[in-house]
């Protein structure tokens, strides 16, 4: 066990980033995630680990600072909430194209537009299907607790470097703002410049006589080469699917019906499972932890076991499309959820299950 603290999700991920050996954080204030930047400025990691923390003039600038830092092989992070993430999408696409490691936190709020500052899961499509332009994917982690906010900072950096790709932590206003007990892992020292040169031979660390110059770019005017590059990216995404798909099964072994939910909604659905079980309904919960790669195989297997699935999301129903693709018509799959900053209750979820799936 590391150090136990009572923290907000936003504070936990900020502290975890410092402990993970992050070299630079570049952000811009937006509700409900401003505590990330505030926490970092208050603990002054530039005086302890040497981590750079900078408030940029915009989300656009912050993501491009991340591009510059990541291009040097440095471990960088940014965070924002929905409207700010939309602004970062240009930079995220460039970083996916240039194959740069990055940790992005999205503390989702209700949209579209300026929307609301209340929690939502309405950015699933943006996180998992693109958002920015081009054939690319992000590795997307969905924390369901303050503990996971901390743990996924470390895991996210690991994945970002394993695959040389931007990683998104798709959280929401509930996880970001609520306080829970968190067991913080022991600090990992930041890598030295020598270690970076060794482990990131592609990085712009200064062209020395013993190597060719390093170029960080997402541009290739030769279409044949660009196609090959996109094929190479795709091979990487397939490797993610094979090696790093993550999910949690809750009461699935004997389940006759299944809820599929991630993040805060999964926390709510855990209670629904308890209440349903008390009523004699054999209900299980499959919680995707990675939204890309999606646990398609696991859901496909469960489609051979249960009678129906309900995708429960704080949106109009976005992940439900991936659940349906995995189930491929074998059993009914429906969506239930509140949106626009409203949060469904366990009782509402159970009522929906009964009317749409069990009685449907």
């Amino acid at each position: 066990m590391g150090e136990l603290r009572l923290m907000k999700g936003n504070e936990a991920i900020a502290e975890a980033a410092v402990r993970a050996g992050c070299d630079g954080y570049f952000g811009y204030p937006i509700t409900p995630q401003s505590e990330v930047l505030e926490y970092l400025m208050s603990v002054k990691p530039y005086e302890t680990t040497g981590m750079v923390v900078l408030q940029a003039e915009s989300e656009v600038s912050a993501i491009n600072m991340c591009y510059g830092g990541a291009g040097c092989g440095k471990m960088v992070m940014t965070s924002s909430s929905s409207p700010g993430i939309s602004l970062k999408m240009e930079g995220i696409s460039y970083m996916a194209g240039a194959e740069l490691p990055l940790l992005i936190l999205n503390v989702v709020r209700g949209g579209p537009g300026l929307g609301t500052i209340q929690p939502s899961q309405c950015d699933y499509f943006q996180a998992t299907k693109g958002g920015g332009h081009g054939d690319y994917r992000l590795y997307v982690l969905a924390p369901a607790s303050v503990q996971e906010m901390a743990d996924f900072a470390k895991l996210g950096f690991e994945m970002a470097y394993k695959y040389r790709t931007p990683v998104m932590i798709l959280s929401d206003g509930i996880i970001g703002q609520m306080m829970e007990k968190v067991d913080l892992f022991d600090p990992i020292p930041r890598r030295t410049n020598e270690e970076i040169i060794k482990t990131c031979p592609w990085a712009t660390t200064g062209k020395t006589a013993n190597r060719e110059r390093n170029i960080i770019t997402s541009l290739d005017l030769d279409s044949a080469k660009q196609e090959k590059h996109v094929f190479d990216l795709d091979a990487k995404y397939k490797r993610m699917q094979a090696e790093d798909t993550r999910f949690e099964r809750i009461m699935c072994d004997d389940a006759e019906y299944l809820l599929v939910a991630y993040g805060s909604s999964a926390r709510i659905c855990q209670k629904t499972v308890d209440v349903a079980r008390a009523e004699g309904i054999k209900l299980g919960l499959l919680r995707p932890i990675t939204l890309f790669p999606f646990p398609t195989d696991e859901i496909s297997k469960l489609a051979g076991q249960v009678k129906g699935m309900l995708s429960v999301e704080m949106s109009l129903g976005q992940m439900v499309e991936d659940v349906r693709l995995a189930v491929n018509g074998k059993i009914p799959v429906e969506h239930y959820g509140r949106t626009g900053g409203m949060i469904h209750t366990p009782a509402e979820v159970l009522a929906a299950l009964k009317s749409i799936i069990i009685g449907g």
Partner: protein
Amino acid sequence: MEMKDIIKPENLVFKKTSLFTEKPLSYCPGCGHGTVHRLILETIEEMGLQAETIGVAPVGCSVLAYEFMDIDMQQAAHGRAPALATAIKRLHPEKFVFTYQGDGDLAAIGTAETIHACNRGENIIIFFVNNGIYGMTGGQMAPTTLPGMKTSTSPFGRDTEIMGNPLKITELVAHLPGTYYVTRNAVHTPAAARKAKKAIQKAFEYQKLNKGLCFLEFVSNCNSGWKLPPVKSNEWMVENMFPYYPLGDIKVPSL
């Protein structure tokens, strides 16, 4: 005397800067970009900074600058080079960091990044090549297009009543406390190029002092976009661009 008797080190009067790659420049013949590239690379070579320098290329005619410069470089999204350079320098304070940008990149889409990097006093150099037009996309109106100047998106000349005024961003950033050295040069004559090189040398020297941002504008030509032969385009530049964008130091360090 045969050729081999002439080609000897002691007879060498001019050579390609070793920091130019073997890739032929993609710039139009007569364009000032190649000369500005050369002056920067000569300076880096002479100061022995190849391993210490990280450059950032923009979007625009010099989008492929990294193909010609034998140093580590990053290619930025349109207008964002100063943001990249900010992080590179802060994470590698021991390196020399510069951006190379055109007028559309720096003074239109990237205005916020430019102003704020200058205002924060980032210890970087911004090389700004101003030819008053979007060259790469085929000659559209730029933020620095002169009043009355014809471009593909101001085909009857820039009407400032409708299209607004040219932005003198170099004068603007000189007012900011974060800029240390702000100067405007040109490279259309050997004398101008020599002067420009001195400014580049100073900028690299100043970066060692950590006193703030060095902003070096080069007023340049775009013979393709201006639809003039190279010599005529330089004459047009002297007659029209220089009165609006006068050459010389705008802010010099009080040493």
